């Protein structure tokens, strides 16, 4: 059977990770697991971003000694966007973890149902 195109495999894993992340966020009531869920979503998105940039038979877009005019390159923009996505993902996960710790210190529990003081 024809080999599955690499980018499709990558995209499936990426979207799978995103779905996994959101299911973790929605199902687990422990906010640390929600934070892990969010970081899963971020890594999933990073994979998707790279997968979308894949060109058939392309190599990394670095023009070193052995690249000729005919070399096919992968889309460099997606690689650049992926770097930014990863850094921002890391930053936001760090601050979410900080808030989770702060909530734990204030309330003594990590259960999300305990944090509904202001509502309606």
């Amino acid at each position, binding site marked *: 059977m024809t080999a599955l195109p690499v980018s499709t495999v990558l995209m499936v894993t990426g979207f799978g990770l995103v779905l996994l992340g959101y299911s973790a966020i929605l199902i687990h009531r422990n*906010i640390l697991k929600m934070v892990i869920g*969010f970081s899963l979503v971020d890594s999933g998105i990073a994979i998707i971003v790279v997968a979308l940039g894949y060109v058939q038979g392309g190599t990394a877009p670095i023009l070193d000694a052995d690249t000729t005019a005919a070399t096919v390159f992968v889309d460099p*923009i997606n690689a650049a966007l992926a770097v930014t996505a990863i850094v921002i993902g890391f930053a936001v996960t760090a601050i979410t973890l900080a808030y989770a710790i702060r909530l734990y210190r204030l309330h003594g529990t990590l259960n999300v149902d305990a*944090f509904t003081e*202001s*509502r*309606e």
Partner: protein
Amino acid sequence: MSALHLHPLGIYLFGLGGGFLLPILYQVGKRWLHAGFVVAMLGMTLCAVVPALSVLQSGETIEITTAGALPPVSINLRFGPWEAAVSASATLAAAMLAISFWQTIRTKYVPLLLFLIATMGVNGLIQTRDLFNLFVFLEILSVGTYGLLALSTSRAGVQAAFKYITATMVASALVLLGAVLLYKATGHLNIDLLIEAAPPLAAPIAGTALAMVLAGFLIEMKPYPAGGWGLDVYETAPPPLAAFLSVVGSAGLIFALGKLLPLYDQALGLLTVGAALTFLASNLAGLRQQNVFRLLGYSSIGQMALLLIALAVLTDIGANEVAPYVLFGLFVNHLLAKAGLFCLAGALRARRVDQPLSLAAKPALALLLGVFVVAIAGLPPFPGFWAKWELILQLAEAQRPVLIGVILIGSLFEAAYLFRWFFRALGPAEKSESEEADDALTLQDVLPPVGFAIFLAIGGAAGAMASGALTISTVLPLLAGAALLLAEPLPGRIKAVAMLAIVAAGSLLLPRPEGIAGLFGPVLLAGGLVIAFAGMAWPGPRRGHYPWVAVLLLSIQSLLAAPTGLAFYTAWEFVTLASAFLIARREAARGEALRFLIFSLAAAFCLMAGFAMIAADAGTRSIYAIIALGSGDGLGVALLVTGFLIKAAAIGVHVWQPGAYAEATDDVTALLSAVVSKAAIFGLLLTGYLVLRSQMEVEFGRTLAWIGMATTIAGALLALRQAETKRLLAYSSMSQLGYIVTAIGLMGHLGWVTALYLVASHMLVKGILFLAVAGVAHRTGSSLLADAGGLLRAMPVTAAMVAVALLSMSGLPPLMGFGSKWLLLAAMMEKGWAELAIAGAIATFLGLWYMVRLFTALFLGPPAAGGARGEASPALLLPQVLLVGGILVLSFFPKLLMEPVSAAIDPEFAATLVWQGQSLETIYGLWDPTPMMLSALVAVAVLTLLWWTAVRDRRVVPTARAALVSASPLPPALMPPLAITFWRGVTAGTNRVADTVRRIYTGNAQTYVLLTLLYFLAVAVALPLIPAR
């Protein structure tokens, strides 16, 4: 080099450079840190405002490229007129918020740098033209907010921050994915190229990507039902931060959405529906809020939704030359008023909505809060009003009545809960709370709100100029009010005289209307001045009374002279506001003032909608041009009539009147009943002219007549059951207004002459009665019928005045009342409405009954225990004498009033209608007043003689008085308070709906994430289904 300094790029240099520099400055010294922040913030503001001014003047756009390459290779920023205006105002607002935020953020460098970079983020959101860069700036704003939310240290605060983060992370993920997928589908990241490529909404990749980006930005603006997390932050964050998010942050977000709108050309309908749902739901939920900041949160989400509706609809119907004014008007109004509200509420330590803040004792703060509340409610003279007016008219032209309804109903809810909070805040706070609030008010607390209020006023003037309403008639009342406001420190008497002088002089400056308005003008002015003169009877500074009375009287004059619908409506709103604030001056009357205001605003919104529809039909906005064309638009006329009838306290919608008249101070009640109610009559007459030539004329006349008559009878019956004088007179004035409405309903020359005649007589009579009753209450200390009694000897002059007034009102021969009743019955006969004439007769009899009841209760029978301490004060008596003089003059020389009245009406009618039946002269011919007057005098003399003999016998009078006071015409069972129960049911129903609406916000972070995901799915499903137009 100096150009660089004031180049918009400076925003980013100061923002980031300053942000990076602050930690180093902090280590050098705290003074350096503060200096660094101030320089950076000032620099950023200048780099936003100065180039903005030059761009707005010259109109050409500043294109900023980065990395020395042209887009699409590099990222570019645009600083065009739109971006300049929004950037400058948002950055300026952020700078002012920094002042009120100073206390909380001055200690450490972290909040300072976060605030700086977040403000830069907002500017980035507005100016960048690259989709991924838009995502980066969205992240800068979000992460800046996460950091700043660390300042709310309360438990609820930290929870709210966590919910805010989890929800906005979903939104950012969507925007990121959407941006990358759009790049995949179209090969562009530059927004302008994306718009050119116009990816189809239904395409699998492009469509889903567009749905992701749209849903991402919509979620950021906290739509209903996926916006609960935003409210928790508004409720718990430090007020200046909440203001920053609600005003500056949202400015960036909605501009970003506006920038991407061309990508969603087909989906504008979907956007409007989503925004309308959010607008209605958040204002509904606002009704039920107890926490002030959560309430302001709901209101600010509602305002953003309104801005989104305007953005989507105006682009949809292609109103491009009007769109900038409407959008920027709504935006600046929300920006300034909401920021001011948050800062002021924070400074006043407001927490619960029903917590009194004793603002009545601090007029400056009350005025400030009042300015913001009026502005947010979209009332003149602030920019929000001009924008909303133009928006409604555009919607009417685009045949979108449902949307008009949604916007106006939502605005009514918003005005209701804002004013309810405002009136509560006026109340005297318990000692502990007010002490703590007093000493805390530093300059930093007050300066930003004052700055916001000043900008609001400037914005309002600019808005008026833009919509061509900056004429003498709109400005004069405000100037008069402001002048008297400055004169507040003067003693009461001088202010009263000054007010009368200003009003008189002012009315001369106003343009002289002709026709019916020309008639109403002098009559209402004279009556108003005379009654206002009675204000002298109340010594003391009476803070706030004189400016509002001046605004009231002059606005009525400008209302009558209004050439266009906008001028009429602006004056109408000034009258409403002035009356409401006058009523609300008395602490006990604040509940009634709120009800009065809600009903008046409902009426005003009906007028706005009605006029918009009719103007859209006629294609012109000048009142008299529309009248010349005549209009067959049933819904438009119905709305106008409903609006005017609400203000004329017709049956069913009269519930606001008795309470307002009874609770307000006596001279204000006299003004309201005698003068202000006539504005509604004038409105009905205008509508009458409008439908004169259309086929609706008969139905219009019939319905008006029956409503009028029903109001008269109901009013009279209710008056008979009142135990308190002012309520009795309130119902009596409702009943008399019913007469006038019936007269207008006759839709004939004779009918309208009667109506005008009744207007004059009712004004005179009600003026006397209310002032007399005021004198009685003044002297006897109570306004209950049972407490008074036997005052004939103690207050003979008042008794005489009341006697004349009651005689005239009841329609007995000698006085002008008889003339009006005679004409009314004659007109009804002529029209052939026999059953109406009979009802009229019954009503007159009932009228006579309650008038005699009032007179005997007050003046005859044994003197009550308290007894009066002598005659009422001359300041009260003099106006009454003048008014009685008016009655006598008009009774003995009716031609004095008849000629101008029939002349005023004639040209309109005669020119167009062939008259059947007697003209006025013939009727008048056979009724020569003088012999009639003499025979009446003889009859009255005989009657008094008979009465005198009866009085000799001690027992007859007291028993008669007791019977009259207690007797009630119908058993209470037969007269259930239908209207009150109906309106109470309406409020209960609205509250129930509001509770179901807000129950979806369970406060659970997980639920909020779920709701955001479902919201995205809803957008993703709905977007491709839209038929490509």
